[in-house]
């Protein structure tokens, strides 16, 4: 099985993570442009950060056989520094058209301020101009209203729902997102976001269509193996294998593949993991140093 993690902040992760991710069958990742834990103060740091997403981090991932893609955008938190945000908007087009940039993102609302709203709208327009999908970050506080607003505004600007991935969903938001034709991504992140036992139930209830699983692993306590662990858990819980494949691989490929910059030919020579080669639940591919324990209680992220 091959996995894609379509939302993970690899700049914050170590090579130990890359090794484990590769061993667990992740063949490609999408790293959304985001903040670095504290607000930037100069447009130069944004510029260099974007450069690292298409340069150094892309190279770093390749050393582990993982193909690295990214989204480019001004995130909702830093949109609140308006003079700086205006300068960032000017440099976005420099990066948005580069190879391997699969979406404008992650954009949207954090506190749902006027400034956030302004720059969300401006970037929706940019996405249309450069013909890229959009990755929407939904707020963690007041999520239900923020998610609905994100979709309303996207539609207002004429974005087709199939070009927009609404991320960080939960049981309260999923129905509206799916009903309105958007992609619904779920972030398996301990304590604060979605858990994967709950994820199994969501897939059981709504089916696999347009549902995407990601880890959003970052500087916080998070798990870069969320996607393969969720897949393994789904197998244990009797979710059909085709459904698992869709939510942990194919749907992400279809959604972001609309950019024309995301094609599975790029990792055709990566075999992922062979379920038959799992020995007592351990993935020990020939010649590999890293081992990941894909079994039992180790699978649960809650």
């Amino acid at each position, binding site marked *: 099985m091959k996995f894609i993690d379509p939302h993970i902040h690899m700049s914050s992760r170590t090579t130990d993570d890359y090794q484990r991710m590769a061993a667990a069958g992740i063949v490609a990742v999408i790293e959304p442009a985001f903040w670095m834990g504290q607000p930037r103060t100069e447009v130069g740091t944004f510029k260099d950060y974007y450069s690292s997403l298409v340069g150094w981090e892309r190279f770093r991932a390749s050393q582990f056989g993982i193909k690295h893609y990214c989204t480019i955008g001004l995130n909702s938190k830093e949109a609140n520094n308006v003079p700086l945000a205006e300068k960032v908007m000017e440099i976005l087009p420099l990066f948005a058209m580069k190879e391997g940039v699969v979406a404008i993102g992650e954009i949207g609302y954090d506190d749902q301020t006027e400034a956030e709203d302004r720059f969300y709208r401006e970037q929706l327009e940019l996405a249309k101009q450069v013909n890229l999908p959009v990755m929407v970050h939904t707020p963690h506080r007041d999520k239900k209203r923020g998610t609905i607003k994100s979709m309303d505004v996207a539609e207002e600007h004429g974005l087709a729902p199939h070009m927009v991935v609404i991320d960080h969903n939960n049981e309260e938001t999923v129905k509206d997102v799916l009903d309105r034709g958007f992609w619904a991504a779920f972030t398996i992140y301990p304590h604060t976001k979605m858990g994967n036992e709950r994820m199994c139930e969501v897939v059981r209830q709504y089916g696999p269509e347009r549902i995407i699983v990601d880890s959003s692993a970052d500087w916080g306590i998070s798990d870069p193996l969320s996607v393969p662990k969720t897949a393994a858990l789904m197998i244990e819980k009797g979710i059909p294998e085709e459904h698992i494949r869709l939510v942990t691989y194919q749907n992400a490929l279809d959604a972001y593949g609309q950019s024309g910059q995301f094609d599975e030919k790029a990792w055709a020579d990566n075999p992922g993991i062979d379920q038959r080669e799992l020995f007592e639940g351990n993935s020990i591919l020939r010649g590999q*140093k890293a081992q990941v324990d894909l079994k039992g209680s180790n699978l649960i992220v809650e």
Partner: protein
Amino acid sequence: MGDAMTEESRTQIAAFLLRVFEQSSSDEESQRLNASLALISQGQRRNFFIAFAGSARFYVNGPLSLSEDDLKLGEQLLPGLKPELWDRLQLARILMLVSLPAGDKSAFLQTLQMLFDTSDLGEQTAMYAAFPLLPWPFSLQLMAAEGIRTSMTDVFAAIALHNPYPFESLDENTWNQMVLKTLFMGLPLYKVVGIDARHSLELATMLSDYAHERWAAGRVVSPELWRIFGHYASQFETDIVQLASSTDPLERAAAALVAESGKLSLTVASHSDAPLSPEKKGSEAWDDLGKLWEEKQAFTAQSSVFDTTEK
């Protein structure tokens, strides 16, 4: 220290490269590229950035295939370069760089710097591959040094391997660092253009010290490290004697080559597994040794995919 290449030869090279590109392009691609090159040569920076930055979207990437005649012509027009190893995207980008007007030096350098500052992995690789074809080569030294300082192997390889720019235009310190780093990164030294012609006692000393470090750590040393030691054999005789007693046939072969060209009276135990054909001498022999070492490394790497022990 102005423009090393004449406008005429640059035009010839551009024509050759364009023809190679068009051999595998669709009509649409060909039209678009030609239109872009014409715009770029008129000098408006914005047009260059738009064309260059959008390359990945406009041109299908893939390998290039050059005929025997093209390869020969390539060797003539682009000594030291191997365009057959580039891909289509890289070639399109190199063509755009070569089309930048060479009249206004400061404008040219500024454009290049702006490009460099926001370049991605693929773009940087193309930029460095284009260096030997660009004007004012000595003004590009600092940028070249960044490419040598990088931790990104692809980028380093683009400036250091199959590229005559370092040999022609880098200062001695940077050249020495580049040679050393090629070995540090486990890359093939035989692919460094001019490796036999540009050497110094200083470089030999740095290399010898590096070998000692590796030996003390119980780590493998590339037999290619000794390539220039034929000129300094007497100063480093102890090293060569140690090399000659190695259990690795490639190391012994290296010792034999150094001993011969350095006129050391040294007996290298010849075993039946002598890997080099005895008729080959000098650069040719070292190239063969480099290739054998490269194959051996690739084989080792394959069997431990995620082994990140140092090379």
